[in-house]
């Protein structure tokens, strides 16, 4: 079912996530098996309640699976204690959320370097220059989030995710709150990160247009994988969604 083109950056093996019990039992993830290849931009799609966000959260170490295993590289997350899990997030993963992405008391540059400085590290300055240039904020690096537009804020969030050179970046509806112009700015930036820097990105979205920026689309329904699509376009994604009845 899964296509593995390169080495896997993250994978879930027989992973289940069950909420409640008895009649109220909800299987958010139902023995799912999926791998995400390095250097690839993957979009996860599916209707509400399909488990796409849950999948992202367990892969990112923000939530735990009820059974099965989740790996980041070779590290199995379900056995880790909170502290080690936190360090995995800090040193190996990057995050972009739909909103509340930035700390309001820190300026754009401080927000970008936050995971690094939490680890007491500094960004490689050449790399930082490159990311800062790519994020296209120019002289607004010293501004606080409330002085930036929504698109700018999300680009800062992406830059933060990239700056620590993580093994994988997870993005949860990163353009969900943006207008179409800002959305394409953010998505292009993410696309460029994959193309130019070989970054691995896994993005949850419900927007076919956003999914079209990815290399591969995984469709979820009822906690398991329904279908997938390589080199998608908006049209092929919409087409497949129709087929799946979403």
């Amino acid at each position, binding site marked *: 079912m899964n296509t593995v083109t390169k080495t896997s950056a993250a994978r879930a093996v027989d992973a289940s996530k069950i909420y409640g019990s008895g009649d109220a039992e909800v299987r958010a993830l139902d023995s799912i098996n999926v791998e995400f290849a390095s250097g690839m931009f993957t979009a996860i799609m599916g209707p509400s309640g399909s488990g796409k966000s849950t999948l992202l959260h367990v892969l*990112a170490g923000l939530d735990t699976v009820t059974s099965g295993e989740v790996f980041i590289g070779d590290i199995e997350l379900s056995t880790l204690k909170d502290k080690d899990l936190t360090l995995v997030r800090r040193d190996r993963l990057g995050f972009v959320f739909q909103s509340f992405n930035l700390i309001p008391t820190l300026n754009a540059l401080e927000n970008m370097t936050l995971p690094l400085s*939490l680890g007491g590290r500094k960004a490689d300055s050449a790399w930082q220059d490159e990311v800062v240039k790519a994020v296209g904020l120019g002289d607004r690096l010293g501004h606080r989030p409330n002085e930036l537009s929504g698109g700018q804020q999300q680009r800062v969030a992406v830059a933060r995710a990239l700056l620590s050179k993580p093994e994988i970046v997870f993005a949860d509806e990163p353009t969900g709150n943006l207008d179409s112009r800002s959305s394409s700015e953010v998505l292009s930036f993410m696309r460029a990160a994959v193309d130019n820097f070989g970054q691995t990105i896994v993005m949850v979205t419900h927007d076919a247009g956003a999914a079209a920026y990815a290399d591969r689309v995984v469709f979820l329904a009822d906690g398991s994988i329904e279908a997938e699509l390589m080199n998608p376009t908006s049209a092929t994604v919409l087409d497949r969604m129709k087929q799946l009845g979403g």
Partner: protein
Amino acid sequence: MWRVTLKGLLGHKLRFMLTGLAVLLGVAFMAGTLVLTDTIQVIFDDLVASVNDGTDAFVRSNEVVDSAFGEERNRVSADLLPQVRAVQGVAQAEGDLQFYAQVVDAKGEAIGNPGRGAPSFGFIWNPGRLNAYRLVAGNSPSAAGEVVIDRGTAKKGNLRVGSRVKVLSQSAPEDFKVAGIVTFGEADSPAGASVSLFTSEEAQRLSGAVGQYDGISISAVDGVSQEQMVRRIDAALSDPKVEVITGATLTKENQDQFTQQLSFFSTALLAFALISLFVGSFIIFNTFSIIVAQRTREIGLMRAIGASRSQIVKSVIAEAALVGILASAVGLGIGILLAAGLKALLAGLGIDIPAGATQVLPRTIILCLGVGTFVTIAASVLPSRKASRISPMQALRSTGSDPMKQLGRRSTIGVVITAVGIGSLLYGLFGNVGNPTLFVGIGALVVFLGVAALGPVIARPVSRLLAAPLPKLKGMVGVLARENAVRNPRRTASTAAALMIGVALVGFITIFAASIKNSIATAVDSAFTADFVVAAKGGGPPSLSGFSPDLAQKIKEVPGVGASSGLRFAGAELQGKGVFVIASDPATSTQLFDVKPESGDFKQLGINDVAVSSDRMKKEGWVLGQRISAKFPKGASTLKITAVFGMGQQAGLSDYFISLAGYDAHYTQQLDSQVYAKVADDANPRVVGRDIKKILKEYPTAELLDQEQFKATRSGQVDQILNLIYALLALAVVIALIGIANTLGLSIVERTNELGLLRAVGMTRRQLRSAIRWESVIIALLGTALGLVIAVFFGWALVTALRDQGLAGFVAPVDRLAVIVVLAGLAGVIAAILPARRAARLNVLDAISQE
């Protein structure tokens, strides 16, 4: 609307428990004070009433001096007794004497912790109705050398009938045989005092009152009223210096005297309770402000669906009233328990308060509930007005108001209020007003409010300054702590203001005490030329104790003592003004104290002479050789100013010196407070000291001190009071800490999303806790910094105002103030424990996705 209020309360139980706690503690303190003092009052009133139970009339001298040392009255001649007994209707009349008599046990220890605990008295044993004591063993004293003691003293000293004891009084120490043991009603002793009873002759001899009594107690036959008795005796006596009062009047007078002393104590405690409540009001204000801000959407929605402004105001105030009433009620209950506990504690310290029902007067209940509720409601008025200004439109917008608006106006208002406060304070201190305490107290209060109003303006720059080293020290955690501390300057400032008050008072009292200690040291260094001083152990109570002049005589006879003198402190009226007088031996005084004689001859001080400081001479416009009127316990007289000296009250001494012979002539009791000695040039001070110590074996209440030790014991006494005040202020500081914890807790709720994000991108729990801890420390240090600035100002103002009353100058004890800063920082750490733990436990995913 009421349902919404109630639901709001129930929905945030912890928050309201913390807010309530701020009120509760202050109210408990207040209730405890009132209940305790009322209870002691009733117990003591009963005690006095039962002492005077059989007394229908009392004859005494009308010559009296009322000074800082209490009321001192002349004695009456024993010749009056037969005259009184001859009056028709007198069933019994007996002479009374009350004097210093300290029982010493077989081991040579003074019984009953003199210098700390209850006093030790000697009395005449009177038979029949005029005796308040009940024999439980042995017999009444019937001969010279016999004493009857109270059962408390007997138990403490392990004494029984037939035991030999030594008794210290104003005559030389003497051996007595315990003839009997008494109780005071059911109690072992009256309020823990040590009592010894003697025959009339022995009592007169021991108190230097041969042929005299303090007064005569009269018991009337049945059918003769107290008033009738007084009238008959009054008619029978012709001495114009004698007055007759009823037993009821005597009881009332004694009770009133005690009430006055007790009210000083209760007023002081109530002041500290009010300080705690004042600090608590900041916490309440802060909590309600934050809650209103957090509920902006909810309130906006209520406005949108038709709630009026006044309904919003009422709902917030109703919430406050409910919290206030509940907290005050619980505080009242705790206060009552606290009073019982304090009574037990006092008993443990040897202050034996006889059994008596705990007094919870209606006044206590009304005052505690009223003040607690009022403070809570008053503190919520501003937040409620703010709530009412929320527009329905704000229901739609997200929270987060602009905290910097109106700061310009605020700084003007703050500066004006602070200036008014400073003005009132300085006016009270330097303005020669009738009621300085009022102006100073209100001034201090207004300064606090003014600085609190200025707080939001100062908070940001000062916090940034205080937190400047943090980013270097703690990296990103430090940056976050600093930014969080300054992100809402209003909130930070009002949280810090609560601690500011406590720190200001602690710092002020520390500075004041250091200045006093410095003055003592300066005075001792400059005026103390003796080598040794014999003083009461532990300082000693101010009146009705001391040493027999026999001690000074014996020290004088020690080989190698060059000069010595007993020293007595007394109150007198000079030219109609109550003053503090020192009596010493004029022949040796100038060798023992460097009083810096200026004119006249100190050595020539006779019975009716006085030496006056040059400061006082200038102030009063007196000249050497002038005669001034004086009033002493033994009557009025005229004193001649025979000498003028330089080191008066300013140097910690007195503006007036009289001779010991003068004291003998003008005062009834003859006890030395201290004895000074200077070693002769050719003698070895160590040998002399050793010889004096040998004499002191007979005087277990005395200790020998050299200059340095004397300084140290005096400083020790100041430290004792200082520690007591620290303990009383501790509550205000604890309440301020609850405030910091409360604010942090509420802030964390507001920042849930942010905390989730931080945790998601890799902040460890430990780092998160650390950031909150440092934020708390910054707030605490902000309060401390502001508090210390105020403390230095208050301290400087008071010390300067008291300069002519013996304070040498302003001293800021840097080491102690540094300790305050460190402790405040630690307090910040403690206040952060719970909020930090709560924040660290947040589920990352829930936190991020929280709306």
